[in-house]
């Protein structure tokens, strides 16, 4: 049974004060807070198992290796990947995207086309731009409409036999739009293109099934899912991961090394050069366990309720405009007050103990589309409450009063 007051007890940080006021944390799309169960997992690892993995003959190393590989299996099960070696542990979604983009630089040729969406985070634009610069491939963009939804008819027109790759986020970090990835994957596959989905913003809210989606690559970051920073994952279909060359050279990723030739290790180690973030990987598993204990159905039902409540309350404020009004969206509200800079609103809210994000949210093309310098973004998690949203609404009213 979902009880937000019980859940809040799991998060020590939620009871702290900021600027003398109780913290109201609405920057969940940037990073989520960490429950005690996950903090305990970090302490447990360093207190009892800390060792380097995969190579040691001693017991500690073997135990740490087991825990690390169990975490990989947990991630595999969570995303419903066919094999655990299809899960590459990385430093986060950005690293995962770069790994794939780098791999494709040897597979693309001049004139090939790659399609990105207008709703992307810079981390899902820049690596592909770099890839296109290196290979001579052409970058095409699926446009968005005023509501912040991708225009699917334009996507259909962009697709051709030259399309080799399509990449977009599952959910937009700036606007919260849930993109129709099922349709996009199906259509892209019809022309033989591979699809990478950036799930960084989706994974805190939904449980993706990579086999049902039939997606080629899916990436996520642990720190947006109640886990630690500096760790994330890349799911890739086995055939694709075998096709891509290694990203970084080093220990762990080799089978045999001589000065004449090196043969690479099998998946997943081929892509995991050097000592990995061992604690991070293990704790990522603990974070997934935690979220599954709460349950993703309960999470999305509750967060939708928060979103509707907050949308209704905020829109009661005269001069407040919400950007991103897609029919299908998650608990993110990007807004501005008329003639007031988002930075000013964010500064006043901070003084009231309310944490929001301001700025372009690493999605400048979206801000350019709306011709605004940025927005105030409040993103809600399953541990937020309606009382906190009331605090936010009062805070925005106060900011409006002070700044007008």
């Amino acid at each position, binding site marked *: 049974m979902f009880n937000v007051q019980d859940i809040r007890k799991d998060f020590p940080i939620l009871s702290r004060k900021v*600027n003398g006021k109780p913290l109201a944390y609405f920057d969940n799309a940037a990073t989520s807070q960490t429950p005690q169960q996950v903090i305990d997992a970090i302490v447990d690892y360093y207190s009892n198992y800390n060792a380097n993995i995969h190579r040691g003959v001693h017991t500690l190393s073997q135990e740490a290796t087991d825990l690390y590989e169990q975490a990989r299996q947990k991630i595999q099960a969570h995303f419903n990947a066919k094999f655990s070696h299809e899960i590459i542990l990385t430093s986060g979604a950005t690293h995962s995207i770069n790994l794939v983009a780098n791999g494709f630089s040897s597979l693309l040729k001049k004139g090939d086309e790659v399609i990105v969406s207008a709703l992307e985070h810079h981390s899902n634009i820049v690596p592909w731009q770099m890839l296109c610069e290196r290979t001579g491939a052409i970058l095409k963009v699926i446009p968005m409409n005023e509501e912040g939804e991708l225009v699917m008819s334009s996507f259909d027109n962009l697709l051709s036999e030259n399309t080799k790759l399509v990449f977009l986020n599952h959910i937009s970090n700036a606007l919260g739009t849930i993109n129709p990835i099922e349709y996009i994957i199906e259509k892209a596959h019809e022309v033989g293109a591979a699809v990478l989905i950036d799930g960084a913003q989706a994974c805190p809210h939904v449980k993706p099934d990579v086999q049902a989606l039939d997606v080629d690559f899916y990436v996520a970051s642990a720190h947006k899912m109640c886990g630690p920073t500096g760790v994330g994952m890349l799911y890739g279909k086995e055939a694709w991961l075998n096709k891509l060359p290694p990203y970084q050279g080093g220990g762990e990723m080799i089978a045999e090394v001589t000065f004449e030739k090196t043969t690479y290790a099998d998946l997943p180690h081929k892509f995991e050069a050097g000592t990995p973030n061992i604690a991070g990987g293990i704790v990522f598993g603990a974070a997934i366990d935690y979220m599954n204990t709460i349950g993703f159905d309960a999470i999305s039902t509750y967060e939708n309720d928060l979103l509707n409540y907050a949308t209704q309350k905020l829109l009661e404020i005269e001069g407040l405009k919400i950007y991103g009004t897609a029919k299908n969206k998650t608990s993110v509200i990007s807004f501005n007050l008329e003639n007031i*800079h988002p*930075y*000013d609103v964010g500064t*006043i809210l901070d003084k009231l103990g309310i944490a929001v994000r301001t700025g372009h949210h690493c999605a400048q093309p979206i801000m350019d589309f709306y011709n605004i*310098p*940025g927005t105030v973004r409040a993103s809600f998690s399953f541990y937020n409450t309606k009382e906190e949203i009331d605090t936010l609404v009062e805070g925005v009213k106060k900011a409006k009063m*002070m*700044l007008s």
Partner: protein
Amino acid sequence: MLGRAQSRPKLENKFSYNLLTMLEETKLKFVIVSIEDIQNEIIDEFSMFDDWEERYQYMIDLGKDLPLINDQYKTESNIIKGCQSKVWVHAEMTDDKIAFTADSDAIITKGIIAILIRVFSNQHPKNIIDADTDFIDKIGLKEHLSPTRANGLVSMVKQLKMYAIAYQTQLN
């Protein structure tokens, strides 16, 4: 601003021409209200406020009162990097003193730059270069000093000092 205009003749009258000549080296300290004096003046003003709300309301008002920068100077090259809001600063030197004008699209940032301009404008480049900025901490705006702070107060101070360094080079 008013305080400076009033105290200036008073200070000049205090000293005879001869004394000023004898103190040629330190002359500037007497004929211009020093950066430190202005900073102390600002610290006094801010000490009257009881809470953050009054402090911020005052800064917002300072921002609103900041004289407009000439539009021709609101160029891409005059934008200070490292701020979440846009900040334009223009500098001009006359009689060995730098006058700054500025603008921002965010009002709190504008208030902050207004305070900085009040401190640094109409000063000799060397005094600007040598000035410390502890007063920012003392007026309760310490949170804006962190290098990660999106308003880029650190970048603003750095930029004003860069102008001073550039003009100082011209004087040497």
